[in-house]
């Protein structure tokens, strides 16, 4: 079943009832990201933009990267060749917002608390901190290490809590958190759509903090369902093959797990594309989508 059919099914439940009103009803978005790894310089602006947008806490020592909470993390890939043929590529990794099969992404399928959910309206995998009871099953299920556990209560040095954003709820000890494509920005954009009397959230009205900040313009964000959006044009997702990119330079991480992610990466370098999945030595890249 394709994602399009899933949407129809959900839409059908509303038959016979007055379809509600207002912003974006009837619009089934599939928000996604395309990251140009050739343009990414590894500067880390996306990570800081994310932290400052999303009230991400920090601790005295953040060098234990297993416990360091970074919704967006820039990984450094190397081609494994010895000096001087070594090559390096940076790979920013937000939550991949897996659609899986009909919205059953790895984490959503296992959450016993309904704390994480997949929305067919936006394609965003949500995380409700107050609902989470900290079993961390989702962290085990996520193949991308995109989820982080709050081992400690967040503490801001005296006075620094003043920069916290009211649009994002600060988390408490014992819950899991992760990238949500700056969903608060979608909420605010929708509010604006209501008062402006428009029909849908436009491409520029909803952009994530990392996309907006990236000084190299490496990140593109938008609705993969909308052919007018740049992400659609860059990734060229094939809806008949679970969104597999038709752009030959585009790939998704561990695509053959069937996670059907919504973060696409573009690289002109073959070794980088190979790094995105597990390949046999003689196997070619670009054959995913199943």
């Amino acid at each position, binding site marked *: 079943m394709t994602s399009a059919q899933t949407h129809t099914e959900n839409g059908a*439940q509303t038959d016979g009832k007055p379809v509600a009103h207002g912003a974006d009803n009837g619009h089934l978005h599939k928000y996604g990201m395309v990251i140009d790894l050739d343009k990414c310089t590894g500067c880390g602006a996306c990570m800081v933009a994310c932290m400052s947008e999303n009230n991400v806490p920090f601790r005295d020592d953040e060098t234990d990267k297993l416990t360091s909470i970074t919704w967006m993390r820039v990984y450094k890939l190397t081609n494994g060749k010895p000096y001087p043929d070594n090559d390096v590529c940076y790979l920013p990794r937000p939550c991949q917002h897996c659609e899986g099969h009909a919205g059953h992404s790895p984490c959503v399928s296992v959450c016993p608390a309904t704390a994480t*959910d997949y929305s067919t309206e936006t394609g965003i995998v949500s995380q409700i901190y107050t609902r989470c009871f900290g079993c961390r099953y989702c962290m085990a299920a996520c193949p991308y290490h995109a989820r982080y556990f709050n081992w400690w209560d967040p503490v801001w040095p005296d006075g620094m809590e003043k920069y916290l954003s009211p*649009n994002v709820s600060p988390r408490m000890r014992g819950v899991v958190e992760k990238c949500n494509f700056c969903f608060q920005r979608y909420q605010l954009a929708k509010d604006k759509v209501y008062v402006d009397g428009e029909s849908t959230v436009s491409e520029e009205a909803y952009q994530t903090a990392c996309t907006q900040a990236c000084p190299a313009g490496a990140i593109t964000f938008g609705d993969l369902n909308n052919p007018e959006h740049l992400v659609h044009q860059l990734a060229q997702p094939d809806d008949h093959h679970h969104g597999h990119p038709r752009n030959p330079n585009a790939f998704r991480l561990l695509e053959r797990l069937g996670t059907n992610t919504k973060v696409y990466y573009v690289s002109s370098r073959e070794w980088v594309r190979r790094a995105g999945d597990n390949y046999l030595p003689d196997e070619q890249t670009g054959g995913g989508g199943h």
Partner: protein
Amino acid sequence: MSTVDEQAKVPDSPAGAETGAPPAEAADESSGSFIFLFFIIGFFAAAILGWVVFPKVLYSTQYQPIDFSHAEHVEMVDEGCESCHYLREDGSFSGVPTLAECIDCHEEINGDSEDERIFYEEYVAKDREVPWLVYSRQPDCVFFSHAAHIVGAEMECATCHGDIGESDSLKPYQENRITGYSRDIWGYNIAGFKRNTWDRMKMDDCSDCHQEAGGVAHSSSVQTQRGACFVCHK
């Protein structure tokens, strides 16, 4: 109220049972009703505790800094509630007016009410925000969009806020000592029953209405087939 052991004794001593001691039986009877009385006492004591005492202990009562009359103000303004509680241009909701907004009309004392005098002297003159107690304040994890409800669903303010707009006086604010939220969220009926739509504003109440409304936004959750969490949470 007899134990298995006591019952087991009966067949062992039939004579005793037949010829036995009526006083003991009578004592049992009186003790039985007596025991039942204790049950009743316990039951009602607990029930009174739960229904009457508990709510009184659970909530602390606070009073608003100024006894504001909505009725009086609504009469004087042109656009009803939206004169002071409006949607901003960016789609967010202004909520309780700030001091600066109040000062638009109250640059000086306009009438002869005691409350206005307090307001002027304590807040306008000292340039202090009024620490209003907000009955409808939701937990931090809630994202409530006034725009979606007022503009999108064309709902009336009263559907959720009741007739506060017609009140002459602000009712005392009851704060839950455990959660810190207003009693209005759970509702004044301690059992959680409600008669009006505005009597309670817990998540289930939101959810009930969203279920009825239907639409994509209200059925987009893969987990629940209802509204996705991120519609109203942040």
